């Protein structure tokens, strides 16, 4: 458990988001410790991506507050400088490396752009930092100069990670960032992310539906169901000894050696959903 007496790097309090009549996120609170790693787990419609988008500033909360590095960010930035400062606090890596990069920009150029914007360094210093970052994420020289279309999915995701790190954020949000990768590549990227956290002290917020990935990368987990937190705690405890019905079902649905999928009662999804919301 993170030490609650230490100021958290991110604090989310009573967060709420409505889209018309739909309450996508309902009274969600959590804190992430400096250099900590927390996962937000849930299925489609659970609100996990909406939370990520609110933290980054892509959605405006209907209620509640978000504070990163002690500064509120639940209202839109007032100036370009304020927006850039927020960019140095929180960065995000999206799921699909095929649509998140500019197709006309090489990896080097994409990283350099961020360095110029956020740090205003001279060309020499930027060049050195680009080399460090591409090295850190394991891109070779040819790949660093290549356009995204010449790179594989795993390589593109490394570019996206390097680009996010270029802003030297305190918090990196990984929104299903390894979900689209082949298993053999996914393992490489998960190892890389663990190394990056060790060497930079950046905090991770992992948005994922994949419990095995969560176990590998996150110390704490928050389980969301229909916009609400149903269970939270240290990842090993929640996965090995889930307390809530929904967490138990989620855990039991993961294929593993010897797993047999069980069919639930022959009822429509509406009926089962109602049963769940009562828990």
């Amino acid at each position, binding site marked *: 458990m993170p030490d609650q007496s230490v100021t958290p790097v991110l604090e989310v309090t009573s967060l709420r988001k409505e889209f018309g009549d739909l309450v996508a996120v309902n009274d969600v609170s959590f804190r992430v410790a400096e250099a900590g790693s927390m996962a937000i787990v849930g*299925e*489609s419609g659970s609100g996990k991506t909406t939370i990520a988008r609110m933290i980054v500033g892509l959605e405006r909360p209907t209620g509640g507050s978000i504070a990163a590095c002690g500064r509120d960010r639940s209202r839109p930035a007032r100036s370009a400088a304020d927006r850039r400062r927020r960019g140095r606090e929180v960065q995000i890596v999206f799921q699909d490396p095929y649509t998140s990069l500019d197709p006309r920009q090489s990896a080097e150029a994409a990283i350099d752009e961020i360095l110029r914007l956020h740090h205003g360094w001279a060309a020499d210093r930027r060049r050195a930092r680009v080399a460090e970052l591409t090295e850190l994420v394991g891109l070779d020289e040819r790949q660093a100069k290549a356009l995204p279309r010449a790179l*594989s*999915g*795993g*390589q593109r995701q490394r570019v996206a990670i390097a680009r996010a790190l270029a802003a030297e954020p305190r918090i990196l949000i990984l929104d299903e960032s390894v979900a689209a990768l*082949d*298993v*053999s*590549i*996914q*393992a*490489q990227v*998960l*190892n890389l992310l*663990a190394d990056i956290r060790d060497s930079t002290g950046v905090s991770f917020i992992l948005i994922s*539906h994949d*419990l*095995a*990935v969560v*176990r*590998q990368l996150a110390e704490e987990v928050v389980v969301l169901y229909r916009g609400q937190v149903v269970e939270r705690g240290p*990842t*090993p405890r929640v*996965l*090995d000894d889930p307390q809530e019905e929904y967490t138990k*079902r*989620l*855990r*039991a*649905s*993961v*294929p*593993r*050696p010897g*797993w*047999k*999928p*069980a*069919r*639930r009662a*022959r*009822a*429509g*999804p509406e*009926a089962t959903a109602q049963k769940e919301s009562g828990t």
Partner: protein
Amino acid sequence: MTGPLLEVDGLTVRLDVRGAKRAVLRDVALTVHAGEALGLVGESGSGKSMTARAIDRLLPRGAEVDGTVSFDGRDVNALAGADLRRYRNQIAMIFQDPRAHVNPVRRIGDYMTEALRTNLGVSGSEASRRASDALTQVGIDSPTRRLRQYPHELSGGMLQRVMIAAALLTEPRLLLADEPTTALDVTTQAEVMAILDDLRHEFGLAMVFITHDLELAAAICDRTAVMYAGQIVEIRESARLHDDPLHPYTAALAAARPDIEATADRLVAIPGRPLSAFEAPADECGFAPRCGYARDECRAGLPEITELDGGLSRCVRAHELRGELGAPANA
């Protein structure tokens, strides 16, 4: 009938890749018996979907095909016209993204009954009755209401169940399921897998189940074939695949996946990236550059697939490595 229902032998498929004919499948051989489920597991570019398309005769125009696909003893590649249609009625396909395979402006009922009405000459009311029964079988309630709805009114999981129900209506003998649960939530996936498994047993259906997930294939398939770079590298009883694999790639794939029951210090990643079939060398083991067990002999020629312990492995060192591959591949 004692022979296999489906037999693929020496299947090599070449397609136009940047102006040249390149192999996307290389010497694929597999058999599926009536009522049996075979898993087909591999990463992107391994050729698993292409194998399914070759079986259903859905290869892209200009494909060059060597080798044979036979169904019930008949050469599938020689079928034409009414024979081909009849063959396809015996094979049902389910895809990853149900929304991409259903006409969004037609009602569920029209979609489900089309094959029955046009190919099998079943009357409209009888077809609707059967469609409604099929929806009940996949656990969808108020089926008559569903038949009047449009695809956008259904969730992804429910639409995939509709696809399964529709696939079963023509009473096929073989189900080709291409990543049918990949786009679904895990709890929905478990439900859809259980339904597939139930119905398959109920109707004695054979199945080829394509996925990138070893454990998922193992859960409902009798045997699992693992593909790499357009070739089958291992076929083994699913129950033994995880603990006692016969090919280093299978072992590496299982080890690379994070474990839900324990946090690893480091994952045992496979270096490099998966090769597509058309990039793979023609005269050596395609996995050798990424393989912790590779020796000079692995680069001396393209390995043959050979029998071992009741399975098949395309590794020249398979005998030597017997029993060693179940442990994490840190060699």
